[in-house]
Every structure is written in structure tokens, then in C-alpha cells.
């Protein structure tokens, strides 16, 4: 593999059709995040890269998604991994952030965007220890998600348990998407 090949592929991926956002889909309160994220356009690139890198990345890799340098859902691996779902008029976000203290996780909702951030410090009690393996992730992280629909921002709840952060964002039931027609004069 050489650089120009990769560059061409990336250019192709960017120019590929389907990147333009689809209009008119207004019926669902929670649109599938994947649809608006261009990662699915990169599927071809993903399979190419996996083929090129082949065993190099996957052979001795104990990571969760050892089959691919990408995660199973086709997006690049991100930290923390999240699940977003809509259940009984609530948008529920789960994020896997093991080994934190609840005070170290910052959750913020502003103008329709939910942000999770924090820093996982490398803090082993005894600094003089010799390490055989360091596979766990450390450092700062931040992820932001668009939460479609009207969220009752006063009633957002977050709970950290067993290394998983759960955020519940109640959606205002009676606020339907208002479509205002404007007459052209």
C-alpha cells in the first residue's frame, strides 16, 4: 500500500454520492444517528483497509473488536462506546466508561446537543511497578451527540453504575415538530 492509493480512496469516499443529508424525514423523534454520520459511506474504505492491514492490527490485539480496526457498527472505534435508544418517550444514552469516579464525568446538554467529557488519569497506586501490559485507555475524552426532538432539559438524569453511564433525556410528548408554511409573495 502506498500513500497515493490511500489518498485517492479517501477522495473517492468524500466524493461518493449519498453524503448529502436526506430531507423530508420529520416523522421520527429520534433519527438514527448513523444515517447522518458519513461512516457508512466509508464502508468500502473500511474493507479495503482491513484487507491491507490484515493481520497486522488484529493478530495480537485483545481489543473488543479484534476482527476489524473499526468497530462492529462500522464506525471508527471511539471512546467511550455508546448506545442511544428511544424508549417510552425518553432518549436513553449509555456510555461505557470503566474505572471513573462519578465526579470526574461531566455531562452537559445545550441547544439540543449532549456532551460527555472527562479524563481518565493513569493512576496506579505504586508508580514503581513494572508493567507487563497496558491495554486500557487513558486520557481525556469528549463526545457530543445531537438529540433530536424537544428535550425536557430540567428532567435529564444521569447515573454512573458498574462503569456504565446512563443518561435519560425525557422527550416532551406534546411538542410535535411544527412545520410552518411560508407563502411566497
Amino acid at each position, binding site marked *: 500500500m502506498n500513500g497515493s492509493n490511500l489518498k485517492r480512496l479517501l477522495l473517492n469516499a468524500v466524493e461518493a454520492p449519498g453524503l448529502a443529508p436526506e430531507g423530508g424525514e420529520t416523522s421520527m*423523534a429520534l433519527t438514527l444517528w448513523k444515517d447522518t454520520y458519513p461512516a457508512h459511506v466509508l464502508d468500502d474504505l473500511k474493507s479495503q483497509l482491513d484487507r491491507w492491514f490484515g493481520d497486522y492490527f488484529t493478530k495480537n490485539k485483545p481489543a473488543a473488536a479484534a476482527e476489524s480496526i473499526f*468497530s462492529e*457498527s462500522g464506525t471508527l472505534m471511539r471512546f467511550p462506546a455508546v*448506545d442511544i*435508544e428511544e424508549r417510552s418517550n425518553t432518549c436513553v444514552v449509555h456510555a461505557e466508561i470503566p474505572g471513573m469516579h462519578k465526579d470526574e464525568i461531566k455531562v452537559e446538554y445545550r441547544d439540543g446537543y449532549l456532551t460527555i467529557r472527562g479524563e481518565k488519569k493513569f493512576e496506579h497506586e505504586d508508580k514503581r511497578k513494572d508493567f507487563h501490559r497496558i491495554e486500557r485507555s487513558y486520557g481525556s475524552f469528549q463526545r457530543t451527540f445531537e438529540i433530536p426532538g424537544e428535550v425536557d432539559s430540567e428532567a435529564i438524569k444521569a447515573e*454512573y453504575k458498574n462503569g456504565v453511564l446512563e443518561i435519560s433525556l425525557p422527550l416532551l410528548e406534546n411538542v410535535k415538530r411544527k412545520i410552518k408554511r411560508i407563502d411566497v409573495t
Partner: protein
Amino acid sequence: MAEKNTQSIARKDDAELASRIKDTLVPHVDICEDKDSVTLYADLPGVDKEGLDVHIDKDTLQLYGRRAAAGTDAKTGDSYTEMPDRDYYRAFTIGEEVDREHIAANLNNGVLKVVLPKSERVKPKKIVIKCG
């Protein structure tokens, strides 16, 4: 402490274990050592104390974690997922120097810590030199 090939365990042991560790995730671990012990940290987000099984059999340390069920509400709308709904499993070979009677495990905020103390006979000893 070396990684154990899970396939070989599955073949040797009973079918129940083989089916249990099929299609599991391999948790990330940190392993460090000092003069008294070897300590292992494993990221097991979503696993509670009840779902955790740390097992030592002869020279094998096996970690098995079952995810706690995330809520009972049925999904009513769309969902997007990056967290695979699978259990965790990983096995290691441990050496003779580990004192098997005093292994301690502790689960906190999705991180398992296993302390494997070294037995007295392998610890470094200071030899006093007598003059005379």
C-alpha cells in the same frame, strides 16, 4: 503471566464452558508487577458483582463477566449501538510463584482488580554477610 489460548481450554473442558465462552469479548487488561505481587486490572463495564466469575484452576486464571441487563423497558423507537451485547472472557496462565491461597479480587466501577501475591520462597531476600 501469559495469555492463555481460549480455544485450547474450550476443547479440553466441558461443553458448557465451551458454549459459555463462545462469542465473548476480550476485556482490556493492565498487568503490573512489583516485588510482592502481580496485579491485574480488567475493564469490565456493565458487569456487576453477581455477574463476575474469577476462577483459578491449577495454572489457569479465568475471568468471566456477564453484563447486567440494562433496563427492562422495551425499546419503542430507533436505536444506535456501539456497545456489543456480549459477555467478557479472558484466561491467563499463572506461574508457580503465585500464592494461590491469597489471591484477592475486587470489582469497582466496572474495573476488576486481581492481586496475585508471590509466595514467600520466590521473594527477593537479603543475605546478611557476616564479617569475621
